[in-house]
Structure formats: structure tokens, C-alpha cells
């Protein structure tokens, strides 16, 4: 009886003893040898990963790939679509050697992928024309230490869509451009006036069904922080940036709006005329303009003291760090970022074109176009740290610690919206972010 059980114990002990070795070996491989892209022959098949979002967007991308494949026979593109809710997690969890030659990524996650050695600089592989044609805002999002790791086909912007008929009926005066933007107090007053005329007393849509403890929370509502003179991160620290009294009071105002918010369970609150105002990005324009026609107005987000601000940045394209065929990857990117494809894509999803020539030709965003406001906002880029009173479009922090920053800010925002004390929620997020940065030696990109 005793001998087999002793044997088993020995087996178990050997098994456990092996664990640490396996563990450390597995961890080591993540940041192991310096992988770098190889130029390759510029011919052959390259693999491409992209996020699967709206249907229009996906088919525009598939068309671009199809016409690229049939236009020449040197490079063939093998496109793989991954649902957007899991997209970033998929790249994070995939080893650099398993990643494709070309991949799409959401703007603010880029620094983390550079830090993890999953992306290579694209400067030498795309043509000078492609780089030169990218808008300043798009280039700012893709740049780290003077090298470009990503370029987007389109950029993004936030605004408030208004229903002119409902606004006029309630006698609400609304801004017509960035210069006469409403203050937070005026916005609250407008909500009050609209509530009086609204059948269910809920005239505002804040895209609540998308959830706030996620990237939408950060993208959609960090402009409140910036507009209050705060920041998500300043010199690698959240303390003194995210927890200032001005930010606390701004988020208190945000919290007070909840009583005006239609939960918008069916996603049609604005299009059906149930709400007069919808706080969301450019991407709702196609649906909203179809539903409202000439009654649709586009307004900037309210000013909390430091001027109106908007989020900026969107999906971008880069080259996998371990690719053996970077030249072919660059050829594909040159085509993807040309006017034909950028225009087709931005027509499909209503986004702001991220190249100068396509932007100038865009019927939506040119001077006098219905979405000129978004172009105006992006023409005053702040970058991610130089947030002054006069600039408008702020890039989310370009830092490898962004996943923690957005997770903690989103959590705080979600609990503030749910009724938590803004001061303690923000202080908690601040401490968590700073702790994480000190655990990771400031996330310095090696």
C-alpha cells in the first residue's frame, strides 16, 4: 500500500518542481529576442488581420483587398477578420511570431504593441507620398520617438447631434460652431428646457447601452476631463492630472445629467425623435442624417472651462514586427491608403478621411459641408499632452500603460454615472494608475 502512494507523491513533486521552470520560460519568450521586420522580396502572399465592425466598413475593406489582389500579381493579400470586441485581446494574447504581416489596431493600443515588440516602424516600407499625405492628427497618433508605427484610413471626432425641430420647439439656443460653444451650465440649462417639452422627460442620449467601463467610456467622456483642464495622465502620472478639483466638479455635472438620459435600449432614441440631443461620434452621421434629413445639426461638446475638446484617433494600420515580407506589406498599405480606398471607406462609415487629399475632396467634411465641425476640430490637434485652451482634438495618451489607464478611468466613470462620489472614484483610479506605472518602471519603451 505504501510504495505506490510514495511513488505518486514523487510524481506529483516532480510535476510541481517543473512548474516554475515552465512558468519562467513562458514569460521570458514574451519579451525575448529582438524581433525585427525583414524587407523580403516584395512578392508573395501576406496575411492581414482586421477588425470586423460595421457591415459597411467590412465590405469596403473586402472590396479594397479584392481589387488590390486582382490589380497585380506580385502580392496577394489574405484577409482575416476578427470581431472587434475581441480584436485587441486577440493581438495581446498572440505571440509576436504568430502575428500577421499587416494588422489593424485601435489607435490608443498602439504604444502597448510597440512596447511588446509586436509592431515595426513603417517609415521605410510605405512610400514617402503615403506618409506625406497623412493628416497631422493621424500622424500624431501613430508616432513614437519620431518613428511612425501606424497610419489610419480615417480619423474620428465627437460631437452632439441635435434635432433642430425639437430644439426650436423648446426654445433652446444652440451653438453653430466651435467659437460660440455652450458652457457646461448652458448645456445643463438646455437639458432642463428640453425636459419640459419631452414626453418622458429624457431628452439626452449618451450611448449608455455601449457601457462606460470600456473604451467607449474613455473615448466618449475623457473630453470632459480635458475640457475641465485636467488630463488622464501627465508626465506618466495620473496624480495631479485626473484628480484635480476642476475634474471632480466636471464629472459631478456629468453625473447630474443621468436624470435626463434616455437609456436608448433599442438604439433608435435619436433617429425616432425620442431625444433631442445625442452625444456620440461621427459614425452615427449616416444613420442620423437618413432619419432626420435637414433637421440634423452637429454641435461641439460643452465647454467645462478649458475650451471645447473632442476625442480623436481611430483604427490604424501597421506592420507586424516579425514579418518576413515588409516590402510587400508596405505596397499593400500604399494602396490601402490611396484616395480611392480612403474615400470608399469613409463614404461607407462616415468617418473623417485621414489623408489630406481625400479630406479636401470629401463632400461631408469640406468647408461648408454638413460635418465641417469635425474637420475644424481635427484641424486644431493637441497631441496627447499639450492640451491648451485653443486646441480641440486630443489624442488619448500614447503610452504602453494605456490599457490600465482606460480600464481604471472607465471603471471610475461607470461608477460615477451609477451614483458614486466623483472625488473618491477619481482618486481611486488615480492611485491604481500610478501604482501600475511604478510596478512597470514607467512603461518606458526600450
Amino acid at each position, binding site marked *: 500500500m505504501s510504495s505506490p502512494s510514495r511513488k*505518486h507523491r514523487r510524481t506529483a513533486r516532480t510535476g510541481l518542481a517543473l512548474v516554475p521552470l515552465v*512558468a519562467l520560460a513562458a514569460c521570458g519568450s514574451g519579451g525575448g529576442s529582438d524581433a525585427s521586420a525583414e524587407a523580403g522580396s516584395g512578392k508573395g502572399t501576406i496575411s492581414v488581420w482586421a477588425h470586423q465592425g460595421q457591415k459597411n466598413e467590412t465590405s469596403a475593406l473586402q472590396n479594397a483587398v479584392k481589387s488590390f489582389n486582382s490589380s497585380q500579381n506580385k502580392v496577394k493579400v489574405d484577409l482575416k477578420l476578427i470581431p472587434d470586441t475581441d480584436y485587441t485581446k486577440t493581438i495581446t494574447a498572440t505571440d509576436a511570431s504568430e502575428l500577421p504581416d499587416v494588422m489593424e489596431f485601435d489607435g490608443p493600443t498602439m504604444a502597448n504593441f510597440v512596447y511588446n515588440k509586436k509592431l515595426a516602424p513603417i517609415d521605410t516600407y510605405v512610400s514617402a507620398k503615403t506618409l506625406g499625405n497623412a493628416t497631422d492628427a493621424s500622424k500624431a497618433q501613430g508616432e513614437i520617438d519620431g518613428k511612425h508605427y501606424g497610419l489610419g484610413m480615417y480619423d474620428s471626432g465627437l460631437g452632439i447631434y441635435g434635432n433642430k425641430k425639437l430644439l426650436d420647439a423648446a426654445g433652446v439656443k444652440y451653438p453653430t460652431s466651435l467659437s460660440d460653444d455652450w458652457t457646461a451650465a448652458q448645456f445643463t440649462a438646455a437639458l432642463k428646457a428640453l425636459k419640459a417639452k419631452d414626453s418622458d422627460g429624457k431628452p439626452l442620449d449618451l450611448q449608455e447601452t455601449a457601457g462606460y467601463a470600456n473604451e467607449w467610456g474613455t473615448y466618449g467622456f475623457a473630453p470632459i476631463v480635458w475640457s475641465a483642464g485636467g488630463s488622464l495622465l501627465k508626465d506618466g502620472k495620473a496624480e495631479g492630472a485626473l484628480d484635480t478639483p476642476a475634474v471632480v466638479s466636471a464629472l459631478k455635472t456629468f453625473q447630474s445629467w443621468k436624470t435626463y438620459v434616455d*437609456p436608448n435600449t*433599442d438604439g433608435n432614441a435619436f433617429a425616432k425623435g425620442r431625444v433631442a440631443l445625442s452625444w456620440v461620434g461621427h459614425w452615427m452621421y449616416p444613420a442620423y442624417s437618413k432619419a432626420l434629413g435637414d433637421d440634423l445639426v452637429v454641435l461641439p461638446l460643452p465647454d467645462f472651462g478649458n475650451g471645447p475638446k473632442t476625442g480623436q484617433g481611430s483604427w490604424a494600420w501597421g506592420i507586424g514586427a516579425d514579418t518576413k515580407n515588409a516590402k510587400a506589406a508596405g505596397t499593400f498599405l500604399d494602396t490601402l491608403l490611396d484616395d480611392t480606398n480612403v474615400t470608399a471607406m469613409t463614404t461607407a462609415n462616415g468617418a473623417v478621411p485621414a489623408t489630406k487629399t481625400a479630406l479636401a475632396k470629401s463632400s461631408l467634411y469640406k468647408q461648408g459641408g454638413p460635418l465641417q465641425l469635425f474637420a475644424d476640430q481635427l484641424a486644431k490637434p493637441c497631441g496627447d499632452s499639450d492640451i491648451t485652451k485653443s486646441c480641440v482634438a486630443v489624442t488619448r495618451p500614447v503610452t504602453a500603460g494605456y490599457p490600465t489607464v482606460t480600464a481604471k478611468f472607465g471603471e471610475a466613470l461607470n461608477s460615477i454615472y451609477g451614483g458614486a462620489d466623483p472625488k473618491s472614484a477619481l482618486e481611486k483610479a488615480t492611485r491604481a494608475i500610478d501604482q501600475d506605472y511604478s510596478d512597470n518602471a514607467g512603461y518606458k519603451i526600450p
Partner: protein
Amino acid sequence: MSAPAVVGLIAFVGVPFGYAVVLSFYNVRLGSPLAPSFFGLEQYRRLFTDPDLSGPFLRALLNNLTFAVVVVPVQTALALGLAILLNRKLKAIGLFRSLFFMPVVFPMALVAVIWRLILARSDQGMLNSALHAVSFGNWGAFDWLGDSATAMASIIVLSIWQGVGFQMVILLAGLQQIPGELYEAAELDRASRWQQFRHVTLPGIRGTLVFVVMLTSVLSFRVFDQVYVLVRGGGLDEDATRTVMYQAVTTAFDQNNIGQASAITVVFFLIVVVLTLIQRRVVRPENED
């Protein structure tokens, strides 16, 4: 003889658990170029003494416990009731059984999305509009998921609805093992329906019942999907419904903090093992020993 079982145990429980223990002593980030640094007990210290981290963690433990304490008895009793109801010789009984079993077949993610519509906070939420109609317009819009008093209750209700069919099927199998002669004998002795249930049915399925209680407890500690889906969907009170699994997964994959997440799972594993051992002491099948 037990070698295959031991190998399986080591491969599927021992190694991952040992791995988690080791990782919990390191500062390990998913895909970080920094080498993992030895952290000692720091992750555990933070979990229990750092107010920012221990607050949510202890709250998550409490939420898990509340969930288990409510779900295990209620779901088991409900499953037993349904099983007895469906243990008859009726026409088309197979159809009834399938209908009651159906929610189990739906993935929890799908169930959560549907319940989001039911529990939505506006007067368009299905539950709110039903109550509105029933109360002749006296019921206003109530925020079932956003209110901390009802958020957990909502999760519990939808979990029971989804899971009860599974337990029901197991209990049904147990009920069908009871020989019919026992009931005939009891009837000859003029035992009432209730007496039959107490002295024939319950002893007959005791082993099955113990198994179901164990299984439900373990499953109820794993609660994750419904919270995850409903929080992402917006409007769910995160603090009132955060469970340990939810916290572990978001720590590991949203914040890339593998060390911290491992510490959470190690503590949770130990707690669940202890609770299961206590439970085994209290309710053990008769034929054991």
C-alpha cells in the same frame, strides 16, 4: 490502478494551480518586455490590505457568497419541483421536458443579452412595461440593473432561469430510479402525498440531491458570463455585481496584470476548496464510509 486519475489530476488541476501560485509571487504582465520580477507576497498584501484593491476584492467575495447562498437552495428546490412535475406519464411529456430544459441550451451570453432588454431601465424595458400595465400605470421606470439593491437579485434570477433545467434533468433521472413498488406499498399503508414525498422520494434521490447541491455550489462560484456581458452592455452596477471570476478575468486581460489575477484565483481556489470540504462534511451521501 489510480495512476491515470492521478496523471489527469496533475495535468489538469495540479499544474495550472501550481503555475498560478508561482505567477502570483511575481510581477508578471501579459506581453511585457520587462522580465517578470519577484514580488514575494506583495500581490497578496495588496489584495488584503490595500484599500483600493481589497475593497473590490472583498466585495466580490461577498457577492459570490450571496449568490451561492441564494442560488444553491432556491435553484435546487425549484429543480426538484420541476422534476417531480415532469416525472409523470403524460402525453407529450418529452415536449414539456425539452421546453423546460431549453434555457440550458442557450449560451449564457445570449441569455444575458435578452435579459438586458427585459431588465432595461426605461419604460421600454419589458419588465417595467409589464409592471406598468399590471399596475394600471402606477409603476414607473425602475433601474433593475443600475440600482445596487436589485442588481445582484437580477443576476440571480436570470442565472436560476438559465440553469435550473440542467439540475432538473439530473434529478429527473434520480426520480426515475425509484422503484414504483415503493409508492404502491406506501399507498397501501395509506401514506399521504407529502408522506410519500418525505419517506420515499427524498431518501430515494438523496445521493442525486447531494450531487446536485455540490454541483450547483461549484457552478455558482464560477458565475462570470452574465456579469461580464451585462456590464459591457452598460447600466449594470459594477460594484454590486462584481464577482471574483469577473475581477480575475478583467485584471488579467483588460489590465494585462497576470500576477495580480493569479493571486486572486489562488485565494479564491483555496476558499472554494474549504467551502466544498465543509459542505461534504455536512451533507454526505449515506452510502459513503
